[in-house]
């Protein structure tokens, strides 16, 4: 169990190292990297299986007891997040395979993806605030490297914006961590939860936590501080932007969920503010998307609006709403990454990312049309795909909690999402190609990329039809989140020696 607990960090770390050693040979790097991420996926599934039976893995690094040493905790939510990271990580790496990119970049891309995964998985399983900061830095560094990968003016300019704003967010997080320690005397999330739940938290500790939530909000791209996301995602290399779209903002959302449920299990002022923020995020994000004319920009703005849904679930703070947030998180990661993947395929085939320059895919590539339709409909919340259940649970939760206006905004956002998804469909697929349908590339590109899109689409469908068990898992996870017994027991746990 000691090994299983640390594997989500060690596996990508080791893979990264081996890739570094094998750096000269792309084939070796690819092999190592694919094996490594497959193992990560297996570990993630193992963890989910383990957690689904009600087990919580936790341990003290270096055997130092809890408020002093660093704790790691894997509960249902963490396990699911690790598993989904494995899915998207593997998907991205497979998609990358044989993409038209200089081999030295391809080689480095493998490396950085594993660096990113190390940070992401670390952030998902740690129960220590400063440790969380460190993992944030790791994933940030990995993402910096990836977003600038391939070079070029546009990409570099995007990287610049991304870099400065994310650095600022991380530095704020660091400051907040220092302040929280200074005000509460602990870095351990379990002990912090005990302090806050018993009402002994000092006012300045609350303030520190607020700053931390602000930092997470920037990371998670909430209104009004999401500006960095639509300014950078669309210029990155396609597999990179898919990876980011799937996983990156979700780390911020995860951290928000984790911290808020730990410290304030019952609704309060923080939840009220989050509710407003969530609704504003949904609406502004989706309106922003409606204004776009390029496929990846539309999708980028939709990330923002979708994050709003998750935060809505968090803000409502009922078990059902939290379960909705968890389910939404999982569903969204798969769907959003897949849409970016498919968007990449579509723009490659049509030779343009601008909707005006795309077209003719409906006739030329019906398979791609089907592949696009599945995640797009899911995103728009069309039943019985996963997105429908995710939205339904949140709408029901907000209506049950008496927040009809929040449900209204969620539904309105859904309607505009339909509009912008059908816009892509209309322009890129239905409409004939502006240069005649012969302008659609005959070459489909690497098959692995199609495979990834197909597998992810299949997962969306399965998650929709099998919503029963998945929802049950999310429900249990949400109960676990507010109960947080594994976390609350941490400080009492004695170290080995």
């Amino acid at each position, binding site marked *: 169990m000691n090994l299983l607990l640390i594997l989500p960090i060690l596996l990508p770390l080791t893979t990264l190292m081996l890739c570094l050693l094998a750096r000269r040979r792309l084939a070796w790097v690819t092999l190592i990297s694919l094996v490594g991420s497959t193992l990560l996926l297996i570990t993630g599934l193992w963890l989910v299986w383990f957690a689904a039976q009600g087990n919580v893995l936790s341990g003290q690094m270096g055997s130092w007891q809890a408020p002093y040493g660093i704790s790691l905790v894997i509960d249902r939510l963490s396990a699911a997040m690790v598993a989904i990271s494995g899915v998207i990580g593997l998907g991205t790496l497979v998609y990358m395979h044989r993409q038209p990119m200089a081999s030295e970049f391809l080689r480095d891309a493998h490396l950085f993806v594993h660096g990113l995964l190390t940070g992401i998985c670390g952030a998902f399983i740690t129960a220590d605030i400063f440790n969380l900061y460190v993992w944030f830095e790791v994933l940030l560094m990995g993402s910096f490297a990836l977003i600038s990968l*391939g070079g070029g003016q546009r990409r570099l300019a995007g990287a610049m914006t991304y870099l400065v704003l994310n*650095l600022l967010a991380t530095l704020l997080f660091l400051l907040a961590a220092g302040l929280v320690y200074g005000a509460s005397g602990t870095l351990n999330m379990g002990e912090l939860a005990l302090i806050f739940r018993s009402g002994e938290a000092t006012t300045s500790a609350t303030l520190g936590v607020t700053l931390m939530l602000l930092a997470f909000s920037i990371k998670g791209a909430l209104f009004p501080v999401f500006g960095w996301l639509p300014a950078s995602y*669309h210029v990155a290399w396609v597999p990179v932007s898919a990876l980011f779209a799937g996983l990156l903002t979700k780390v911020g959302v995860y951290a928000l969920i984790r911290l808020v449920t730990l410290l304030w299990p019952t609704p309060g002022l923080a939840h009220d503010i989050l509710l407003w923020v969530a609704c504003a995020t949904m609406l502004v994000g989706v309106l922003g998307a409606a204004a776009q004319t390029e496929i990846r920009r539309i999708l980028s703005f939709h990330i923002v609006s979708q994050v709003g849904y998750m935060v809505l679930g968090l803000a409502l703070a009922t078990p059902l709403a939290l379960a909705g947030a968890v389910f939404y998180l999982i569903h969204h990661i798969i769907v959003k990454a897949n849409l970016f993947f498919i968007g990449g395929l579509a723009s490659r085939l049509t030779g343009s990312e601008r909707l005006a320059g795309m077209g003719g895919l409906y006739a030329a590539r019906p398979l791609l049309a089907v592949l696009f339709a599945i995640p797009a409909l899911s995103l728009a919340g069309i039943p019985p795909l996963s997105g429908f259940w995710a939205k339904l649970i949140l709408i029901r939760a907000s209506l049950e909690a008496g927040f009809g206006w929040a449900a209204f905004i969620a539904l309105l956002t859904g309607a505009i999402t339909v509009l912008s998804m059908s816009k892509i469909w209309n322009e890129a697929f239905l409409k004939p190609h502006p240069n005649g349908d012969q302008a659609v590339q005959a070459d489909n590109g690497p098959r692995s990329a199609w495979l990834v899109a197909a597998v992810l689409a299949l997962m969306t469908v399965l998650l929709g039809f099998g919503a029963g068990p998945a929802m049950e898992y999310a429900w249990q996870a949400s109960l676990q989140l507010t109960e947080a017994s594994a976390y609350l027991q941490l400080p009492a746990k004695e170290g080995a020696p």
Partner: protein
Amino acid sequence: MEWVAAVTAGSMAGLGIWMMLDQHLIRVVLGITVFSNAVNLGVLAAGRHVGEAPAFIAPGVDAAALVNPLPQALVLTAIVIGFALFVFALSILKRTYELHGKNDTDQVTAVVEQPAPDGQENGVEQGGTLDVDERDPSAGERE
């Protein structure tokens, strides 16, 4: 000392933000450093530096008189991380100057909002080379 640290950290943070709002990328990058230094100082101050001696255990030293070592360890970690990020920012700066040939923030970042160029594989963009007139003016280098 607490308020000295607090005021210094706060002022440096303000200066850092001010520099990040500058029109020149160089100063933006320096602003990151200043802001990160401010945050480091803030973390150390928030963790208190009460105590007369550094946290070294030696025979005969009163443990109660030692300063809190934890914030120091945290700040040390943060400094090194900050340095790594600074270097990366610096290399972005360098590369930006090489590719864009200018250091004006708004002009550089505005490129992101231009429509996506057509007919491009999503791989390496063209234009990764320097124009002749932007090369290093120092002649001695090519010897």
